[in-house]
Every structure is written in structure tokens, then in C-alpha cells.
């Protein structure tokens, strides 16, 4: 017996995949060549599962700003923001984020995960209520666990269910904080934010939107779903990440709350962690400038996303409810999903295999994410590979019935 033996049950599902030659947890890229291509097993592979929405990871200006900062300010800060970890680059990025969102305050965290952990565990406490969408990201659930507030789940994207639960709390003291995501990471669906904002107003709750997958993707200027839905004034806190559209690592929170800076002296996942290296701050800041200066990136991104979504839907695959830069295909079961995923990879297309318990409704998903940097040719090649594997596995017959013998 080992101390980890308690988790052995989780290995069974994984071993079942391994028995089919499917090993999604050990994909190691020999080299990554561009935002859309990597070398896997010595072969050029299209990357269609990297959340690299604007394709800025290889932008030459972002790289050169990172290089300059690393050479000029060193490889790391070796300290937390509240000790020696506040460099000019951290402050300037915070100022740029506040300016971009038109908010008074911005705070940078060392990861997006820690941004959610820190903000959710601090804004509400004992006697308060945290209202979470049932399909929330793990970092939101973990943040709710770290804090002391009562956590209540409402049905995914269901403002009526949220309203009902807030109404049940009428007369109960304490603050309520509603947490939703701009784009949900598994199926690519957006929150019904207009309706949720109305619930928030009627019930006197606070509203936080995690724009991790929607920053640089949605909204006229790329600020995310709150901008696209026209309800920015109702959103009290926006949380986001640098590790998707901004091509680096880290997280942030912006707000107009006048006492926002209190977070800097009470928020443990902010206070007790080293701040990000100068090079990461510099490339992130430059990527934010590109996001603002080049709206064409969002146009290309949505063109690519819609082309992939429409193509997969037309072939008869079961896709999510709306075309967004996350497009997921629902598979009948985990083994089929695993084999499909492996055949795509061996055909030169990398996407994500998403299986229970990390998925909504325990679905087995082939999850893709699209980049502005994909060429139309790459999207079409991806569609061809999907069609080819789909045919081989019996998905694309006229009755779209899966050939039972295909496995």
C-alpha cells in the first residue's frame, strides 16, 4: 500500500484507454513550430487544441519584449508582489489592463487558477453565499472550497434556476456573489449574461464574470462577453487569464470597487506566491497592445471558428450550441472518443480528448480550439481529417449510425 493507492480507481478508466493504444496524458511535443504547428513523433502536426486564440505566442514583438525584459531585469523576481516582486513591468501591465477595461483597478496574479482562487475565496466569506454555475471550471470550484462562504450551484446557464435560489435566500444576511464564465471551456457556449445581469440587479447580488476564454474573442473591442452582451456596468468583477489569447501565463482581476486594493493585503493566493518574471509581464503587455490594435485578429478567429463549426456540423457531428473558438464534438462513449482522438493525432491533427468527470453531463468530447493564426487551408485540412477518421469509424454514413464493428 502506498499513500496514493486511494486514487487507484481513477487509473482504471485511463488503463482502459491505454488498452486501446490511446495515451492522451503523454503527448509530448518534440518541438512547437508556430501557434498552429508542432512536431509530434517527428511529424508536422496541426495544433487545433491549444487555446491560442489570437496566435500571439510567436509574435515577433511579443518575443522581443520578453527577451529585452529578461536580459534587462533578469529571469525572475524571486519574491511575492507584497515583498520584492513589484517591478515596473507588473505595475505597467496592471495599468494597461485597467485602461483596456475602463476600470479603476487591476491586479495581476501568478496564474489564472490563482486569480480565481484568490478572488473567490476573499470577496465572500463566512455568512455570505457564492452562486456557481454547475458547469464551472475547476479553479472556480477550488476557489469556492478555499473560502468560507456557503456555495450554492445553479443549473448551467439557467437564469431562472439562479433566480429561484437567490429568492430562497431572501432575508438571509450576507453578500451573494454570482459567478459565470464568458465562454465555457468544454462546449464553447456563452453565458446568458443579459438575463443573469437582470437577476443580479433584482436580487442585489454581486456579479463576477470569468472571461478566460472570451478575452480577445468576444465584444467589439475584445473585452469579452460582458462587452458583447452590453452589460459591463452590471459586472462588478472580471477575472481572466494571460495563458490563452495573450499567449503567456498568469491571471488578473479588474473592478471599479473603490476598496479593491484591500485584496492586496488579505488575498492569500496573491500575497503568498512569487510574482511572474519580467519577461512574462513584457510579452503579455505587448500581446494586450496587439489585441487592441489589431481587430482583424478577431475577424480571422471568428471566420476560422465558424468554418470549422459549420463544416463539422454539416458532416453530421454533434457540436455545441453556437459557433465559437471552442468547438466540441460529442462522442457516444469514452473508448470511441479515445480511438477517434488517437486516429486524428496519427493523421496529423492534434485536438483535446475530454472525458468524465471533467466534462458536462459526463460527455466524452473531441474538443478543438481555433486560432486566428490558422489558415483557411489548415481548417479545411482539419475538416478533411475529421471526415476521413469519421468515415473509418462509421460516423459519416447516411444514417449517421456508428458501425458497431469499427472498434
Amino acid at each position, binding site marked *: 500500500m502506498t499513500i496514493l493507492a486511494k486514487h487507484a480507481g481513477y487509473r482504471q478508466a485511463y488503463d482502459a484507454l491505454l488498452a486501446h493504444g490511446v495515451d492522451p496524458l503523454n503527448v509530448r511535443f518534440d518541438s512547437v513550430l508556430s501557434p498552429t504547428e508542432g512536431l509530434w513523433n517527428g511529424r508536422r502536426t496541426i495544433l487545433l487544441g491549444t487555446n491560442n486564440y489570437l496566435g500571439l505566442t510567436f509574435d515577433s514583438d511579443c518575443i522581443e519584449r520578453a527577451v529585452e525584459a529578461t536580459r534587462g531585469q533578469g529571469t525572475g523576481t524571486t519574491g511575492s508582489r507584497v515583498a520584492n516582486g513589484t517591478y515596473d513591468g507588473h505595475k505597467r501591465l496592471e495599468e494597461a489592463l485597467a485602461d483596456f477595461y475602463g476600470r479603476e483597478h487591476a491586479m495581476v496574479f501568478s496564474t489564472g487558477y490563482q486569480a480565481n482562487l484568490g478572488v473567490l475565496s476573499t470577496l465572500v466569506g463566512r455568512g455570505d453565499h457564492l452562486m456557481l454555475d*454547475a458547469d464551472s471550471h475547476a479553479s472556480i470550484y477550488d476557489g469556492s472550497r478555499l473560502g468560507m462562504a456557503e*456555495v*450554492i450551484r445553479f443549473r448551467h446557464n439557467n437564469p431562472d434556476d439562479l433566480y429561484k*435560489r437567490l429568492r*430562497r435566500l431572501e432575508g438571509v444576511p450576507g453578500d451573494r456573489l454570482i459567478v459565470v464564465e464568458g465562454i465555457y471551456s468544454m462546449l464553447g457556449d456563452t453565458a446568458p449574461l443579459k438575463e443573469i445581469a437582470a437577476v443580479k440587479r433584482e436580487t442585489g447580488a454581486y456579479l463576477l464574470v470569468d472571461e478566460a476564454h472570451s478575452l480577445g474573442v468576444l465584444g467589439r473591442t475584445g473585452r469579452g462577453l460582458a462587452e458583447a452582451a452590453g452589460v459591463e456596468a452590471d459586472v462588478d468583477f472580471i477575472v481572466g487569464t494571460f495563458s490563452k489569447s495573450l499567449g503567456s501565463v498568469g491571471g488578473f482581476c479588474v473592478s471599479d470597487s473603490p476598496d479593491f486594493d484591500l485584496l492586496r493585503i488579505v488575498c492569500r493566493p496573491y500575497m503568498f506566491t512569487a510574482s511572474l518574471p519580467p519577461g512574462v509581464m513584457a510579452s503579455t503587455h505587448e500581446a494586450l497592445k496587439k489585441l487592441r490594435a489589431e481587430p482583424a485578429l478577431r475577424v480571422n478567429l471568428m471566420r476560422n471558428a465558424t468554418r470549422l463549426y459549420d463544416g463539422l456540423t454539416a458532416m453530421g457531428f454533434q457540436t455545441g450550441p453556437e459557433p465559437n473558438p471552442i468547438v466540441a464534438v460529442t462522442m457516444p462513449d469514452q473508448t470511441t472518443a479515445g480511438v477517434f482522438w488517437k486516429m486524428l493525432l496519427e493523421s496529423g491533427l492534434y485536438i483535446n480528448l475530454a472525458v468524465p*468527470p471533467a466534462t458536462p*453531463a459526463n460527455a466524452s468530447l473531441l474538443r478543438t480550439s481555433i486560432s486566428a493564426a490558422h489558415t483557411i487551408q489548415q481548417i479545411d485540412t482539419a475538416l478533411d481529417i475529421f471526415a476521413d477518421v469519421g468515415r473509418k469509424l462509421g460516423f459519416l454514413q447516411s444514417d449517421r449510425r456508428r458501425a458497431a464493428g469499427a472498434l
Partner: protein
Amino acid sequence: MRDDIAAIFEQVLGRPVAISDDTDIVEDLGMDSLGVMNFVMAIEDFYDLSIPLDRVAQIQTVADLIRAVEELKSGTAA
């Protein structure tokens, strides 16, 4: 209350179940975490209340569930 809960189990699981106070919701009824969540939401609807997540985590048997619902209904939950 036990009859109502049994009816809700049947509705969520799609099959008749026999339950007692000692029935372990996960082990005896073979529910996975999604099943538990759907079941909890159905219970919440039926009794018009919300069971906070940390309370859900403490519920193992039918008796635990009945106690949680009773406490939440009477407003005496810890």
C-alpha cells in the same frame, strides 16, 4: 419524507429503488457524481431549498439526507 425521496431517486435513476435510512447513496444505489448532483437538484426543487456544497459533501446515507433537508427547512442548519 422517505417515500418522496424514493420517488425522486426513481425519477433520476429511471428504475425503482428500495431505500432505508442506512442506504448509502453512492455505494448502494450506484450513483456517480453527476447522478448525485442531478439527484440533489431534484431534491432541492421538490423541497424548495438549496443544499450548500459542503453539506452535500457530508451526506452519505438517506438518513443524512433527511436530516439535512429537515435542518435546512427549519432553518437550523449549522
